[in-house]
């Protein structure tokens, strides 16, 4: 299990990534994070929903109520252009960050 600090820094990136392909609702986003990480990334409601609302205020994502046939009403989020730009920026930063860390922590071969 990863520390809360580590998880806290990545939740925005993970959320934006999961919304890149299609709109999703909150439960789905949380579930996908858990399943996609093999159960290692589990965010509780008090972490996920505030993040969604903050990103919505910053206009990175936008939500609306959708009632599909045969299903109950759900609040779906979709990625906005601003969010797309942020996603690209954050992904690039993340990759550079991980590379820099690996540079130091990986065992050195003689």
């Amino acid at each position: 299990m990863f520390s809360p600090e580590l998880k806290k820094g990545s939740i925005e990136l993970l959320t934006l990534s999961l919304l890149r392909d299609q709109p999703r609702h909150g439960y789905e986003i949380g579930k996908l994070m858990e399943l996609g990480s093999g159960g290692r990334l589990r965010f509780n409601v008090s972490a996920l929903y505030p993040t969604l609302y903050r990103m919505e205020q910053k206009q990175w994502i936008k939500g609306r109520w959708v009632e599909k046939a045969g299903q109950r009403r759900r609040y779906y989020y979709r990625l906005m252009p601003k969010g797309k730009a942020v996603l690209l920026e954050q992904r690039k930063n993340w990759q550079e960050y991980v590379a820099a860390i690996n540079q130091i922590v990986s065992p050195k071969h003689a």
Partner: protein
Amino acid sequence: MHDWNQYVREHLRLADISADRREEIIRELACQMEEFYQEELAAESSEDEALRQAEHRIGDWELLSVELGRAERPTRTAAAGRKIEGFEEEIRQKGKAWLVLADLWQDLRDGLRVLRKNPGFTAVAIFSLALGIGLNSTIFCLVDRLLLQPLPVDRPGEVVLIRIRTEKGGMSRSLPYPEYLELRKQSKSLSGIVGMQRHVSVLTGVEVSELLPTECVTRNYFSVLGVKAQVGRVFREDDANPGDPVVVISDGLWQSHFGRNPAIVGKTIELTKRNVTVIGVVPKGFEGVQRPLTTTDVWYPAGEFGSILSGPRAEDFSLMGRLASGVPPLGAQAEVDTIVRHLVRNNPTADKILGATVSVEAEDYVKGFGVLGFLVMTITGLVLLIACVNVSNLLLARSQTRRKEIAIRLALGGSRLRLTRQLLMESLLLSLAAAAFGLLLTRWAIQALPALLPPMPIRVLPELSPDIRVVGFAIGLAFLTTLIFALIPAIHASRLNLVSLLTESPGTGQSGSRYRGRNALVVGQLCICLVLLTQSGLLIKSLVRGLQADVGFEKKNMLLAQFALGIYSYDGNQARAFLQTLQERVQAFPGVKQVSLAARFPLSLSGGGRAQQVFVPGAQTPEDIKYNTVGQNYFQTMGTGILRGRDFTSLDFGSNAKVVLVSEAFTRRFWPKEDSLGKVIYLGESSQANVCTIIGVVRDGPVNKIGEDPQPYMYLPLVRGFNGELTMLVETAGDPGDLASAFRQAVHVIDKRVSPFLMSTLKETLRQGLYDREMVVTFLGSFGLLGLLLASFGLYGIVSYTFSQRTREIGLRMALGAQPSDARRMVLRHGLHLALLGTGIGIPIALLVSYSFSNALYQVNPADPAALVGTALLLVAVALLASYIPARRATKVDPMVALRHQ
């Protein structure tokens, strides 16, 4: 389908967010919970298990609320930002003061909102405080009127008391009238000196005659004091016809009996069967200047007019003066002292006058009675303290309930100072509301006060009304009580730590120190109650002892009828004949055992009666000894024991009567080692004309008040004074009250003009002798019971709250096998523990107080075990009763519900 919307609405705490946005968030979270629920059902959990899991997976609602609040803040801030820009400009223009006022206004609105949301707490707090503030305001009204307010005269700071110092150490004796006139003429340091005598007159010529407090005053009384009439005029020294029977009346009398009709001026009224003319009414609020009992309704001038009941007694004028311009009190003191010494050198009195003391009335009075006033206000202050402690406890308990709300407010950016101020504002609103209700209570209490006090034949309380000073006092008290009961809870609440709060486990109870603090407050309340109630118990016992006390005569069924035949122009012989006829006729009534006469009845209102200068051979100087003149069969009628010697016979009632009976104290004073029987004394100067032989010694008895030390006393045969005041004593077999109307009828048959101006039974008269004690018991007992009522609320509150916070613990115990009766015992034990602590600490304090005031107790041990133990048991019983409801609630705790209790 489960109503998740409602579930989320109940658990989510989002402040400062629009209703629409809140509903949106609720709906979304409800969806989330439904998803969790469906997921669990899909995993083949039972419905109950799925519900439970769905609830569990949301996690901590408090934390969620905080995080969502933070997340929503940018939205509010953006919208508020535009508003703030406008505000900033406005503030720059209006300044800081406006900002502070705006904050206070917001605090006020928030405070009202919070109090409205908690009606139960608000009602209990206001009720407790209103009782305390109302009681204190009532007593302040009394103390202020009697002690603190300056005299309602012109320039009260210039008014001085003149007291005469005598050899025997007395300070209140007045100057003989001729010497007073001379002092007035000679003094330059006082621009005026007035004399006053208190009397009682009777308003007759009406359906029910009424006793009126009356003052005989010198003609310059109103002009020296600077009191002008509101209608008509007051009497003056230069009145054209000084012999006319004129009076000035009070505003109260004008209102109650004459409907404030301006035609009162020049109206003739009948006062003690004598026609007098009302020439004016004094202003409202003026009822005389002889504090504390300034209750005069009628003033008449001394001098040629003479008195209504009896002539101005030469030595009985109380003196007051007004300092001349620029003269300090010490200067007046020196001059008046010198003049008085010079005057009495040539006219020595029995109790040798040594000089005079002049003191500013306001300072002197407050010094003398300040202690009493302070004591009374301290006692009522204790009851208010009990009320404050109750509310403080309630606030502390409530701050625990509100701790997460407060922590969230702090987390959302509120400053501790602002929060403390908001909490204080809530408390101040409570206090001000309590002050308003308290003033209503004061108004009612003042109106009800005469009915609550023991009955007296004459008005003893001045006119009271809650004026602006009392209102100011109540408001001041509201602020003070806020500081007392709210400051600590407010500071304590603002120090709450968010993180530890949100992570603490619910239902396990708070830290021990918080409980200890509240328990200590309740123990303090119980202590105060014990002290108040013990003192009441001791005083009640003292009162009962007083009523049972040996009064020197038997407490028979007796009717007492007072006459003043002089006002019907009866001379001595006519009066004698009248009374003899009346006595014979009354003696013949069925049920009448004996009838006798006396100038005064012991323990009546006439201040011990007259004093006679007596010269006892062998003594250095003559002494003034109080005496009574009595008719035949007096001692037999009264049941007063004649210890040695004999009673008066019919021969002793001749005009040359030269015999006297004396009290045991008289014998002890002048012949400590001998019997006084047969001894000779002189009534006045030692000349043969004044010789008198002691023929009997009578048992000692109180003269003025029950419980006073025996004093030398004499009984002379009733040969003189038939045109003065007289009391007829009628011993009856049955209830003496039944005889009253037949008695009046018998009087009217002999002379229809005449009627007794006062009739009462012996029982009523004895009770009047204990009036002051009964008044103290009434007050102290009421305060004590009120305090107990408030303390029992406090105890109920703390026990109830303590165990509601320990519900989980109780549930756990019961789940582990404890019985409901064990839970009940636990709660009752807690209440009992507090009560025992309270009584244990309170008893030594109560003993200290009783010993300090042991002088006020009559034949009662200050450490009387019955009073102490009785009060302690009462307190314990009340504590158990107060703990009973929480104890019953504890037995009904369902272990499973308790374990889930938050």
